[in-house]
C-alpha cells in the first residue's frame, strides 16, 4: 500500500501520564505506527499493558509525553478541536448516564462539529444521521430513549453517533465489552463492513482474542511497553502471540488461534477410532482426566465411537472385558475404573 492511503501515523511516540510535579510515568514507547484507509486494526494486550492509554493518546484525550501523531501529514496538535472532531471519532467505555436522550438525539450529537452555534440540523445533517442509523442497524431504535436500550443496542447507537461525525478514522475502546457472544460477533462484523464498504480506518481495543483474530486485518500487540504490529496469521506463526499472553496455566493453541487452560500432560494413552465428532468430544473429556487418545498403535485399552439410529455410542474394550455406552460421561467413568484396576478384578465387567 502506498503512503498516500495512510490515515494516521505516529513517530517516536511516548505515551503515559504526567505525574504531579516534574515526574512522569511512561507506559508505552512506540517508534512508529500507521493506520491505513479501509483497515480494521485490533489492539490486543493483557490487562494493564496500556491499551486504554494508547487509545486515549491517539484519540487526543490525553497528550503524548513525546513524539508526534499526525493525520494526513498534519500534526494533531496543530488541529483545532473542531477540525480534529471532523477527522477522528471515538467510542469510549464511559457509561453515558443521560437516559432521557432519544437515540436520534444521541446520533444527532455526532453532527456537533458541523452544525451552527445553536446546533441546528440542516437537511444534510439529517441525511447523515439517517444513514448512520441505517448502516449500524439502529434505525428501528430511532425514537427509543437511551436508558431503555440493552447494552448491545446502546453500543450500536454510540457507534452510529461516531459515524455521524463522518471521520476517516474511528477509534473504539473495548466496543465488545459487556456484550454477549452473538452481539460481540455482530459488532465485529459491523466494524469490518464499515472498514470495507465505507473505506473507514477502524482501530479497536479488545479482550476478545479469537474474534479479533478472525476479524482484524492487522493486530497491534502490546507488551512490556512496546507494540508489535502485523497480520494476525504472522503473529501466530512467529510466536508473538504466545509471548504476550505468557502466563502460568494458559496454553496458546496455534492451530485454532485460541488460548486454553493448560491441562496436565496425559499419564496414559488409549486407542481410539471411529466417528470424528464423537471422538473429538470424548477426547476433551478424557484430557481433563489426564488420558490421551492415541492412534491405531494404542495400548491395552481402546474405544470405538459411532452413530446409529439412537445417536452416538461408544464401545470400550479392555484386557478385562468390553462394554457399550450411550454417553461420554459413562464411557469416561468406565475407562477410569478399568484403567485404575487392571487385571483380574476387571473381569467382572460385561464379558463377551
Amino acid at each position: 500500500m502506498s503512503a498516500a492511503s495512510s490515515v494516521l501515523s505516529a513517530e517516536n511516540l511516548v505515551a503515559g501520564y504526567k505525574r504531579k510535579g516534574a515526574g512522569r510515568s511512561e507506559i508505552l514507547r512506540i517508534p512508529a505506527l500507521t493506520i491505513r484507509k479501509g483497515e480494521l486494526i485490533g489492539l490486543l494486550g493483557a490487562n494493564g499493558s496500556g491499551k486504554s492509554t494508547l487509545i486515549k493518546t491517539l484519540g487526543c484525550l490525553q497528550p503524548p509525553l513525546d513524539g508526534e501523531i499526525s493525520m494526513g501529514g498534519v500534526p494533531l496538535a496543530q488541529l483545532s478541536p473542531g477540525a480534529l472532531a471532523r477527522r477522528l471519532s471515538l467510542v469510549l467505555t464511559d457509561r453515558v448516564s443521560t437516559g432521557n436522550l432519544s437515540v436520534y438525539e444521541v446520533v444527532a450529537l455526532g453532527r456537533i462539529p458541523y452544525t451552527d452555534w445553536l446546533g441546528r440540523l440542516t437537511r444534510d445533517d439529517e441525511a447523515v444521521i439517517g444513514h448512520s442509523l441505517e448502516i449500524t442497524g439502529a434505525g428501528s431504535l430511532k425514537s427509543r430513549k437511551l436508558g431503555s436500550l440493552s447494552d448491545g443496542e446502546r453500543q450500536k447507537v454510540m457507534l452510529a453517533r461516531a459515524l455521524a461525525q463522518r471521520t476517516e478514522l474511528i477509534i473504539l475502546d473495548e466496543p465488545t465489552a459487556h456484550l454477549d457472544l452473538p452481539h460481540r460477533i455482530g459488532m465485529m462484523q459491523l466494524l469490518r463492513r464499515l472498514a470495507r464498504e465505507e473505506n473507514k480506518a477502524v482501530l479497536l481495543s479488545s479482550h476478545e482474542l479469537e474474534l479479533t483474530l478472525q476479524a482484524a486485518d492487522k493486530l497491534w500487540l502490546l507488551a512490556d511497553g512496546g507494540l508489535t504490529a502485523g497480520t494476525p496469521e504472522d503473529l501466530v506463526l512467529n510466536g508473538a502471540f504466545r509471548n504476550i499472553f505468557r502466563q502460568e496455566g494458559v496454553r496458546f493453541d496455534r492451530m485454532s488461534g485460541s488460548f486454553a487452560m493448560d491441562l496436565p500432560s496425559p499419564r496414559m494413552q488409549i486407542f481410539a477410532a471411529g466417528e470424528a465428532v464423537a471422538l473429538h468430544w470424548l477426547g476433551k473429556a478424557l484430557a481433563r482426566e489426564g488420558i490421551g487418545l492415541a492412534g491405531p498403535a494404542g495400548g491395552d485399552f481402546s474405544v470405538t465411537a459411532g452413530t446409529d439410529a439412537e445417536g452416538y455410542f461408544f464401545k470400550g474394550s479392555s484386557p478385562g472385558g468390553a462394554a457399550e455406552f450411550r454417553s461420554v460421561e459413562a464411557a469416561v467413568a468406565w475407562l477410569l475404573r478399568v484403567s485404575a484396576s487392571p487385571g483380574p478384578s476387571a473381569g467382572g465387567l460385561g464379558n463377551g
Partner: protein
Amino acid sequence: MGVPQLAPARVRKRYGNAGWTGGLMFVLFLACTVVFFADVLLGPVEVPFRQVIRILATGEADTPAWVYIVEKIRLPKAVTAVLAGCALSVSGLQMQTLFRNPLAGPAELGITAGAGLGVAAVMLTSGGAVHAYAIRQLAPDGGWLIAGMASLGSALVLMVVVLIAGRVRDHVVMLIVGVMIGTLTISVISLWQYFSRPEQLQEFIFWTFGSLGGVTGTQLHVLSAITLAGLCVAFASSKLLNALLLGEHYAQTMGISAGRARTIILLSTSLLTGSVTAFCGPIGFIGIAVPHIVRSLFDSADHKVLIPGCCLTGSLLMLVCDLVTQLPGSDSVLPVNVVTSLLGAPVVIWVIMSHNNLRSSF
C-alpha cells in the same frame, strides 16, 4: 456508497414530539400570562379590575394611589418574579448538566451563599446604615455595584466547586462538599456580621429574608439587563450543554473543549444567580426543582427545549409563589424563600413519584 435519500421532502418532525413540545410551551406561556396579571391585580390593597387594565393601558386611574401601587409596586414585583424564576431555574439546569448531578442547584452548591458574601461585602463595609440603605434603594449606580459583587461572589464559590468536582465523581459526596462550601461561606458572612455595627446589620439581615419587592427603577433595569445577558449566554451555550450530556470525554471528542464550556457556563450561572440574589436575597429551591419538572414535562434532554422550558416554568412557579406570599385577605407578607420551599418541595416529590424518570436522566 453515497448517502441514501432518507430525508423527506419537508423535514417537519425534529425528534418525534415537536408538537407536544410546542403545545406545552404555549400552555405554559398562557399560564404565565394569566398568573402575571393575577399577580398585578391582587394585593393587600384592592384595586378594581377595570382600573388595573386602564393603568396598564394608559397609565391613568381614578385614584393616583392606585397608579402608584400598580406601576411602582406590583408591576416591578411581578417582573422581578419572572426574572428571578428564569434566572434561578436556568442556572440550576446548567449546573445539573455541568456536574452531571441531579442534586446540583445554586443554593445547594453554595453559589447563593457566594452571592451573599458579595452582598455582605458591599453592605457591611459601607459607611453606615444610611449609606447601605442608599446603595439598595437610591443610588443610581449602587445596583450595579451590589449585583457585580454578588456575581463575583457566586463565581468565586462556583470556581471552587468546579475545581473540586473535577476530583469528586460521586453525586452525594459532591453535594456534601457543596453544602460545606456554602456553610463555610455563610460562616465568613456571620463572622463579618459579628464585627459589624448594628446599623449596618439591620439592612443585611432584612436582605437575607428574601423578597421580590423593592426592586424598582434603576435596580430593575440593572437586574433585567444582567439576567437577559446571562440567559443569552445560557441559550447560546445550549450546544455545549447538549454535548456535555454524553460526558466530558465525549464532548471533547466532538470538538467541544470542556474547559471552555465550563468557563462559559460558569459565567452565565454567576451572572444569573449573582444578580437575582443581590436584589431578591437568597431564594432556595427554584434552582434545583424547576429543571426536574421541565425534564419530566417535556421528556427531553435537549437544552434548546429545556432552557425556554425552564424560563416559562420558573417564571410561573415564582409568580405563583409571589401570589401566595401576600395571602389574599391578610396584610402580612410571608418571606418568599419560605413559600418557594413550601410550594416547590411537594411539586418535585409529585413529579419524581409520578414520572419516575429522575434516575434515567442522570
